């Protein structure tokens, strides 16, 4: 892993991000009758044949593996919607289209386990791959611009979990470096600086993270 030598920069592996994505809800159509499942994370069911119900991804996959249900692909995974998104992504260089936070992982999970339930599988798969590549190029180009500003900041909206995860170690390190090299000219007194390392003067007030 990249961040191991430096505890401040840690990354999740792809599998871990996928694990988090498995908490997203999907709609399934069961083909069996079952009592409601009472889990710590909530109650799911009851399940009746041909009655659609909402369950988390992990449960849907577990049921699908046993042949107990079909998964309904989410609405955003339709060919029309994806084509639209891809076009919009290609049109504007700055803005990112709104997609589910875990779209990369969800689509990959569905392709792996429920490929039979997705209409136009090949089309959807290649569209999602194209969208992902287009977005990643844009992430790179938007990161390029962020050190022009005096504040060393960049604003990128609507990034997904996997995209953030891929650039996280790089951006984290780069920001640390910018901060470190930016600080000596912020500290005017050279005597105070030789006594105290510039990296240690991290007393900028942090804003609390916004709840998702």
């Amino acid at each position, binding site marked *: *892993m*990249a*961040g191991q*030598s430096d505890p*401040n*920069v840690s*990354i999740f*592996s*792809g*599998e871990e*991000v*996928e694990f988090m994505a498995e908490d997203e809800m999907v709609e399934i159509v069961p083909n069996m009758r079952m009592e409601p499942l009472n889990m710590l994370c909530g109650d799911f069911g009851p399940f009746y044949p041909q009655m659609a119900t909402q369950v988390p991804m992990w449960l849907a996959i577990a049921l699908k593996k046993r042949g107990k249900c079909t998964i309904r692909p989410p609405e955003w995974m339709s060919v029309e919607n994806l084509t639209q998104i891809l076009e919009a992504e290609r049109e504007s260089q700055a803005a990112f289209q709104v997609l589910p936070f875990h779209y990369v992982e969800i689509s*990959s999970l569905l392709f*792996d386990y429920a490929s039979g339930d997705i209409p136009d599988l090949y089309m959807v798969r290649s569209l999602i791959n194209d969208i992902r590549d287009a977005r*990643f190029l844009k992430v*790179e180009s938007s*990161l*390029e611009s962020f*050190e022009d500003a005096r504040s060393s900041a960049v604003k990128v909206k609507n990034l997904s979990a*996997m995209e953030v*995860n*891929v*650039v*996280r*170690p*790089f951006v*984290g*390190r*780069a920001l*640390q*470096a*910018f901060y*470190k*090299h*930016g*600080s*000596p*000219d*912020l500290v005017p007194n*050279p*005597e105070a*600086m*030789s006594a105290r*390392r*510039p*990296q*240690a003067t991290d007393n900028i007030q942090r804003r609390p993270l916004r709840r998702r």
Partner: protein
Amino acid sequence: MASYYDIDDILVEEQRVPVAFQQAVNGVDIDPSAETHCVEPGSKVELPYWLAHELHLRKVAKMKVPACFNQRTKLELGADGASVDLRSRCLYFYEFGCKIAPLVGDRDMGSFLLSAFRTRYQKILAKAHNAAFTAHSKLLSYLTKEETNLYEAAQSSMAAFKKWRIGGPRFERASVLGRKRKEAN
């Protein structure tokens, strides 16, 4: 960030700095070929940073700007920062610069380092996330330690992502499970 056991931090302090002694020092051998065991005031030597730093603080010696931060390097970095071979000049260019700047009284050092890093950052960014590792051995040979870390962080996260996307066996079977039970007797 820089802890006592940080090996990079230790190596940074090994870098040599030219100093000029301001006082005579007795009982010191810095030049093996010297006849006497003392250092005249005004003599110039290159010492490791950790020693030069202490001498500088005690006003025994005065630090000078090391060769890797001379005017020529500054001009080269200003002209085309991305293709300057900083690795051969000083492997710890930025960290060393940060340490040196307050001691040699160079006010512009901070902004100089920052602008150098900025131009080089763009090049690393453009290369790091997309191409194969071997394709950039030339670029890698120019990068300082910190930039190499940055590059490798990007490479490995991209590699991890590709590995996940291609996928492997989703469930690994524990080696114990496949085995047959041993005979009881």
